[in-house]
Every structure is written in C-alpha cells, then in structure tokens.
C-alpha cells in the first residue's frame, strides 16, 4: 500500500525558542534584572557603546554583559578590563544568539545581584532580528558610514527594536547620510521606536542614551 496521508501539524518552528525566551524574561522579572539585547552590523560600535555606558552610569547600576562572538573573546576582554562582569559566549559559527544560549549566559552570572544585563549580539542585521533572546528591550545601532538606506534593506530589524541609536554622528559632515530621511523611513516601519543620535567617539548624545536607559530601568523596576 502506497497511500499518501496528510497530517496536519500547524506548529511554529520557532515555538521552542519563543517559550524559552518567555522563561528567561519571567525569571529576570523576578530578580528585577532588566535584559537588553543590543544588535547591529559588525563595526557599528556595540562594544564602544557598552564601554561608554559603563562610564555614563558611573556605578549607579550593577551591570553585567553577555558577549556573543562567533569565535573570539576580544570584546569580553575589553569589557572585563573595566571591571565589569562579562560572560563570553562563543556561538561557534552561528550568526545570532537564541534564548537557549542566553540562558547559559545568565546561568553563569549571579543575576540576582545585577540590575541590568546587556547582551552584545553577533554583528548582523538579519538573523538576530528573527530570534527572541528573552530580552525585555531590544536596542539597535546604525552607524553613519553604513548609510541611511538600511531600513529599506533590513526592515525586520528596525521593526523589532524599541530604540535606535544612530552612532558615529561625528562623520555626518563627511558623508551624504540624510538623518531626516532615515528617521522618516524608520518611523514608517516602527512608529513606537525612539531614535537618538550619538557618537561613542566624542561622547556626543551619550547622556540622552543614559537617560533613556535609566528611564526604562525605573519603569521596569516599578512594574510588578
């Protein structure tokens, strides 16, 4: 008998990851630890932003960093050199982090002693947008040299983020990057997103990022 049967499945392929991400969020809600997922292209300034954040917070929040790299510990070493608790996850060729990998990261940290954990995701505007890490807030960086057309090419990334930091604004005078056009494109994709302009090199705008972070932190701690 070679009869073909049809089996109805109707199952989300990413359902395991979504479930795991919910568990991470709930677990960290209990310890009042806010988890922030930082995403961008390679070289747009994720590590520099983290270093600026350490400076800007001036010890007002207990901070931990989960570094994700395909196969190096360079970023974790830079962060740990500032006396910040850092965990390195080597993704071993994977282009993004998922909730299971993040769980390993927070298992390795005493999260109940931390107010804020920042995930430095793998540099990539495609895959990290697809996988819920369990973060409470998603933040992305777009740097001026990358161009103002990126929302047109990677719409999903811009759609899933709560905050966009436009970094390297010290390069604006050298480039034809149109900040007004960028804002229009991003807000059309995601009207809830906040957009801030910063330069991790000169420190311009870093205060506004720290204020945003403190505001979100206060709202997170205040929620039950």
């Amino acid at each position: 008998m070679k009869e073909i049967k049809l089996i109805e499945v109707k199952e989300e392929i990413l359902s395991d990851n979504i479930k795991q991400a919910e568990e991470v969020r709930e677990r960290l809600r209990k310890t009042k630890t806010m988890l922030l997922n930082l995403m961008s292209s390679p070289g747009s300034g994720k590590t520099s932003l983290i270093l600026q954040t350490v400076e800007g917070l001036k010890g007002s929040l207990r901070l931990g960093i989960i570094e994700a790299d395909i196969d190096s510990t360079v970023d974790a070493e830079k962060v740990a050199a500032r006396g910040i608790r850092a965990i390195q996850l080597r993704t071993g060729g994977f282009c993004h982090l998922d909730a299971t990998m993040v769980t390993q990261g927070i298992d390795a940290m005493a999260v109940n002693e931390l107010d804020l954990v920042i995930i430095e995701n793998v540099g990539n505007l495609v895959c990290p947008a697809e996988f819920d890490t369990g973060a409470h807030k998603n933040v992305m960086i777009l740097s001026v040299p990358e161009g103002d057309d990126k929302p047109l090419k990677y719409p999903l990334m811009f759609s899933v983020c709560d905050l966009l930091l436009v970094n390297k604004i010290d390069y604006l005078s050298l480039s034809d990057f149109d900040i007004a056009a960028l804002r229009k494109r991003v807000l059309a994709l995601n009207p809830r997103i906040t957009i801030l302009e910063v330069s991790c090199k000169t420190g311009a705008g870093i205060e506004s990022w720290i204020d945003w972070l403190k505001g979100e932190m206060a709202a997170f701690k205040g929620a039950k």
Partner: protein
Amino acid sequence: MNNVRKVMAIHLQVGKLSDLEDDWIQRYFDYLSKGTIAEGAKLKIERMPVMVQCNVCSTSYEADIARMGDLVCPACGEKGGMLLSGREYTVKEMEVQ
C-alpha cells in the same frame, strides 16, 4: 505514532519578511534530514503576506515588501503602522506514507 514510514512532503508557511530563500531552506533541510524518514522530502513553501495595521483607523492591509519604508494606509492615508504578521515559520502539514 502515526505509523509513518516515509515523509514525502512538508508544507511550510514562511513570512515574506524572512530573508531565507526557498532553495536554501530546501538545501539546509536536505542536509539535516539525511538518514531520517524525512530524507528526500520536498518542501512546499507558501510565502505568507506581511500584514500591517494602521495606527489611526485600525485598517489592516498587506504591505509591499519592496516598499516597507513607505507604508501608506489605503483607507485613511496615514503613514506607517504596526506589524501584524509576516515573520512566521510554520509547519502546516506533512504528506506521509
């Protein structure tokens, strides 16, 4: 469980916002399914539309993926909106023997 000897085909629903190409999904699947009862199964991929809801009048409409930066509500002309769907990866059904 279902007394399946061989999986002939799998129907997937993939949102149009996914950057994965059909050919590559099949190639990855072929690699991963080697030595299982699903080896050789054909993936039938249905691309699901990107649906957006207007923030002003709540009308739902399909967005053109090539023009995601210039969304305009067909009912009231408002720009932009909330993403309702278009990100899914769902196994809808399987053809088995």
